[in-house]
């Protein structure tokens, strides 16, 4: 498998008051195309920071990040936003759906950034909802859906523009076991059947079992790498 993500000597510093805190220390990592990688580690170990850097939500203080041949650490804010729109799908712990929009409209959101017609947008959103098993909930607002259903809507939103990479930050952290398993099964299907590369931050070893490989971070350093 070709390498999709290349991380070289990446560091990330934050300023806390006048103090500099290094959250990531010279991280090097390759992630293959089509991989399903679980990123684990204690709180404050730098998992989410690494995820944010790979997803283009933040820029490294040092080093380089290449995703699909694109040096994303060299992109400006607007170019990075456009890159995210076309290349990455995001799934959050608390779903982060727009409360005033229906499931269908939430899923359509990333497609507003494309040149697709309204009809085509609706069609694609319907397909994405069907894929996550929520075609019959298209007109429901987030408050009318269970946590598991909301997370599946957010997965539909993440895949609707057909990105290569899915970045998931604790996607089952707010769900009961059954809903968590449904979501993880869905992610695994997207990885196996649709070839999506998935990078998932989790605290839950059971969730990590759904991944092909697990990576552990501790105090900003990759400490262990093992095959699942």
């Amino acid at each position, binding site marked *: 498998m070709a390498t999709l993500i290349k991380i070289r000597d990446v560091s990330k510093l934050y300023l806390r008051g006048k103090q500099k805190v290094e959250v990531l220390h010279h991280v090097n990592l390759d992630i293959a195309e089509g991989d399903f990688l679980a990123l684990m580690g204690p709180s404050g170990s730098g998992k989410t920071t690494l995820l944010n850097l790979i997803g283009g939500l933040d820029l490294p203080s040092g080093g380089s990040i290449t995703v699909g041949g694109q040096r994303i650490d060299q992109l400006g*804010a607007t170019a990075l936003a456009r890159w995210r729109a076309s290349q990455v799908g995001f799934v959050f712990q608390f779903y982060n759906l727009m409360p005033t*929009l229906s499931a269908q409209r939430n899923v359509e959101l990333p497609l507003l950034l494309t040149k697709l017609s309204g009809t085509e947008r609706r069609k694609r959103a319907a397909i994405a909802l069907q894929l996550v098993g929520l075609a019959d909930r298209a007109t429901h607002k987030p408050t009318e859906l269970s946590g598991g259903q909301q997370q599946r809507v957010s997965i539909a939103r993440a895949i609707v523009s057909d990105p290569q990479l899915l970045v998931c930050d604790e996607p089952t952290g707010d769900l009961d076991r059954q809903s968590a398993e449904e979501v993880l099964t869905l992610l695994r299907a997207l990885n196996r059947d649709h070839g999506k590369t998935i990078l998932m931050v989790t605290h839950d070893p059971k969730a990590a079992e759904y991944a092909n490989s697990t990576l552990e971070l501790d105090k900003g350093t990759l400490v262990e790498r093992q095959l699942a």
Partner: protein
Amino acid sequence: MKYLHLVWAALFRRKTRTILTLVSIVAAFLLFGLLDAVRASFEEAGQSANGAQRLQVGSKLSFIQTLPYSLEAQIAQVPGVKDVTFANWFGGAYQDPHNQVFSFAVAPNYLDLYPEIAVSDAEKKAFLATRTGVLVGERLAQKFHWKVGDRIPMQSTIFPDREGSKNWTFDIVGILHSTDKKSGGFFDQMFLLNWKYFDDTTPFNHGQVGWYVTRVTDVNRTDAVAKGIDALSANSDHETRSQTEQAATANWVKQLADIGLIVRSIMGAVFFTLLLLAGNTMMQAVRERTSELAVMKTIGFTDASVLSMVLAESVLLLMLGGVLGLGLASLLVPFVSAGSGGMLNLPTVGASSWALGVGLMVLFGVMVGVVPAMSAMRLNIVDALRR
């Protein structure tokens, strides 16, 4: 346009707050529409084709100073003057001093210079033939249920008769009808009495007139005619100031109050309050959507598109309320005019008022939205998602 449903959904995220803010905006622009109509009404006073042919000649000192009757013959000789007439303020009130009536003691030819006031020949003859005769405006007659043949008491708030009483008695001999809708509000309220009777009866006048009205032969020469008339009294104790009817009305209104300034002051205070209120609404609306805005940026909305959407939201808020308010003002103007009993003849909310109103809506929308829009644009995704 494809973002409109997002903007709309964001605007009505908190329905109660948005509706209350909208009500405030509707009220502000309703007031703007009505007050602008009042201002336009005063600005339009005296502007008519007939009015353009008339010059008002009054005392240079003040409109309450009188002029000698002897000036009439001299004014008539000024080149460019076609007709001259005159009038005095009577200061009448009916039954109660609060029931003020636009009452004037006028020369016999007064109505000849006002073709926009219609009265039958028979009634005109009766007016000239009856010393105590009066002609009253149609609406005024309706207001007090007067009819031709009635003998009515009228109190002058200024002039007593020779016995010292301010209670006068008049005979209604005719009804005045306005043929000009624009100035109809005023003419329909008029009460005209004979100047000769007035001058003979009150010891306070002695051959004085309040002002002269002249009709010019050529409207393009009004300046020259006005100078010619004013030259007659130059360096005398009764210097005159001649001006067009429009200018005279504007000056008269200005001596009562600067309507434009009053309207601007009221609207300034109303709009300032509105800016604070709508600004607060927008600040709150954006603050409580921080994580939603962060998600939008996460999935690829650029800083510029987030800025535009928040600005569009605030402009839409102002436009919705403003258009409703001005629309409501357009509907209410005729009722306000009718309700004033002809005292106010407000023009409809015209294209210029709409253009100014829409301009203000957009301007206020941008002013109200710029700070929250900038903060949304500058939002750091990582920090915002952590909240």
